């Protein structure tokens, strides 16, 4: 079979096969078209690219290391395990790659205010950070349930000068924060730039966010050639909306020898219905401006999700993932809360790294497959963020008092 040209997607209407598109109210259609136009111009503008590269190098701290986790490899007894250390970026997650890019776009478009939605708080912190640096006003929408379980990040955003608005509608989590940010944007569209944190939303966002995160996969190509002497055999990353996964996967889609597995939040287990795994157990639908796999009931209402990890607690997924799933190019699976937590502890003890609960899902998957692979095989796990923000959640779950 001929390998499709993955770089040709989305098409000029923002579609990845049947997925993607632009399903928003009329007021936002023209602003989205203008954003698309501005991005098409700026992404080939040497001055814009130089500014972006400079920020990624000197402000974010890129490139992030590709770390050979030798003790973990030994403990699991099989394939070599490598960690792409996005947790070492400024603000502690891959999210900053995208916010730096979008904030530069906002600046070039003359916008004075940025808004963002956040689940775990990492995208909110990354947005607040870059807003402070560029002197932009920043408002972050966050479900009140997430405000409570991610309080350290809420405080970080406030310290950075952002206003955090708790969202009390619907299920009070990430999806409702996104609805509220859209409502803000439609009201303040003249001076406001909406910095979407994942590869979802209306076109051109899934493309923008993918492009800004693809620096991760481009670095891994170079680093694995240097450190392994070739490309890895398996890439794995957690998938909520899917921005860290697409960032790692996208540049390597043209190489059929590289297998890719996206790991969704299995929550209490797919069979319990209490999970956040639309690719594993959902169906195509329309949510938040794009057509993709969603978790919905028979009436088409979006249903509540569950995951120990706030950043994966989302009923939709980026449209490119939906398309890559149907095409069979990327496989998707899910691991449970318990499996993710076990992987969290294992990495902490074996390597001295506290991973984010989100990234712990990818680790838990690697743990399942590494023992069955030969020692000359290489797995790259996207360690998308650091776990400091999660210590309260873990303590509470394990019955430990920190006060």
């Amino acid at each position, binding site marked *: 079979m001929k390998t499709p040209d993955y770089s040709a997607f989305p098409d000029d*209407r923002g579609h990845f096969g049947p997925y993607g*598109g*632009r*399903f*928003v*109210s*009329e*007021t*936002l*259609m*023209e*602003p989205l078209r203008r954003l698309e136009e501005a991005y098409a111009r700026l992404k080939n503008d040497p001055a814009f690219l130089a500014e972006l590269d400079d920020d990624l190098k000197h402000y974010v701290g890129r490139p992030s290391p590709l770390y050979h986790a030798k003790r973990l490899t030994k403990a699991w007894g099989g394939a070599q395990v490598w960690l792409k250390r996005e947790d070492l970026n400024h603000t502690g997650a891959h999210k900053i790659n995208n916010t730096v890019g979008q904030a530069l776009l906002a600046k070039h478009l003359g916008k004075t205010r940025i808004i963002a939605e956040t689940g775990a708080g990492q995208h909110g912190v990354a947005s607040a950070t870059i807003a402070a640096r560029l002197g932009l006003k920043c408002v972050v929408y966050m479900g009140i349930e997430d405000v409570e379980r991610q309080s350290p990040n809420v405080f970080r955003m406030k310290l950075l000068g952002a206003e955090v608005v708790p969202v009390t*509608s*619907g299920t009070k989590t990430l*999806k*409702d924060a996104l*609805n509220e940010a*859209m*409502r803000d944007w*439609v*009201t*303040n*569209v*003249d001076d406001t730039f909406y910095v979407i944190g994942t590869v979802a939303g209306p076109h051109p966002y899934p493309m923008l966010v993918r492009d800004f995160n693809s620096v991760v996969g481009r670095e891994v190509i170079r680093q694995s050639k240097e450190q392994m002497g070739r490309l890895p055999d398996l890439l794995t990353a957690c998938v909520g909306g899917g921005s860290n996964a697409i960032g790692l996967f996208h540049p390597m889609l043209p190489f059929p020898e590289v297998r890719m597995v996206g790991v969704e939040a299995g929550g209490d287990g797919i069979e319990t219905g209490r999970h956040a795994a639309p690719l594993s157990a959902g169906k195509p*639908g*329309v*949510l*938040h*401006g794009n057509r993709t796999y*969603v978790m*919905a009931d*028979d*009436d*088409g*209402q*979006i*249903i509540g999700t569950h995951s120990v990890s706030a950043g994966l607690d989302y009923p939709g997924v980026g449209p490119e993932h939906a398309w890559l799933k149907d095409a069979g190019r990327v496989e998707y699976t899910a691991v449970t809360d318990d499996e993710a937590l076990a992987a969290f502890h294992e990495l902490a003890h074996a390597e001295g790294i506290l991973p984010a609960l989100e990234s712990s899902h990818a680790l838990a998957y690697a743990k399942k497959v590494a023992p069955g692979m030969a020692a000359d095989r290489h797995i790259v796990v996207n360690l998308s963020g650091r776990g400091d923000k999660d210590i309260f959640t873990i303590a509470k779950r394990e019955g430990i008092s920190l006060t």
Partner: protein
Amino acid sequence: MSRISGVLEALKSKGRKALIPFITAGDPHPKHTVGLMHALVEAGADVLELGVPFSDPMADGPVIQLACERALVHHTSLRQCIAMVAEFRQRDTKTPVVLMGYLNPIEAMGLENFAKTAHAAGVDGVLVVDLAVEEAPEFSPTLAKAGLDCIFLIAPTSPAARIEAAAKLASGYLYYVSLKGVTGAANLDVDSVAAKVAEIRGITGIPVVVGFGIRDAASASAVSAVSDGVIVGSALVSEIERNQAHPERLPELLKAKLAPMRMAMDRL
């Protein structure tokens, strides 16, 4: 001619403007909706817009979000909304009814199935808030084939090319969103509405009705003077919210809210 076009043309020939109230189906409880629809007609409604509840009403302000949540407590589904229209039609065969909602519940039901079932029940038009013309090349002909009018939104940000594209696929009326914002917002500017409606009329002959931010007799009268009619939603839905504990009072309360708008518009 569709029931919607018939009603709007008759109004125009008499120099009158259309009054189009909106309520969310199933709010505060599905058993009240049909009664409220009849009450709105008695108070002078020309067309009814019935909101189909959705879990993620991205384009709506807090008032209609809460109405969706109240309706969804009772699992008010798209099929039930259609059944309510069928029940309404037992006593009223004249007043057009437009279903207004979001795309996902329609897709969950299946587009063709939805169009056929809705038309058979007496639904006249459909407005899908998150479906702009670009994504509607299949949607709009399927609706038209089933005999339903496809209503599109036009916004203050819509350039001429988008208005032309919408006018090509639309029938019944165009819904001009009076402001940049969500439903129930308060920053209505009649002069800018007048200018945009004039621009739309220069492009198409389809009637232009205006919604978002119309809350009382004065705003209804001012906006209808520069358009073909007004849509009133959040102002009525707030009344339902305030009196949800006394649903028996709602028909009279909604009439009391709507009737002064009718009078003010007819004085033009």
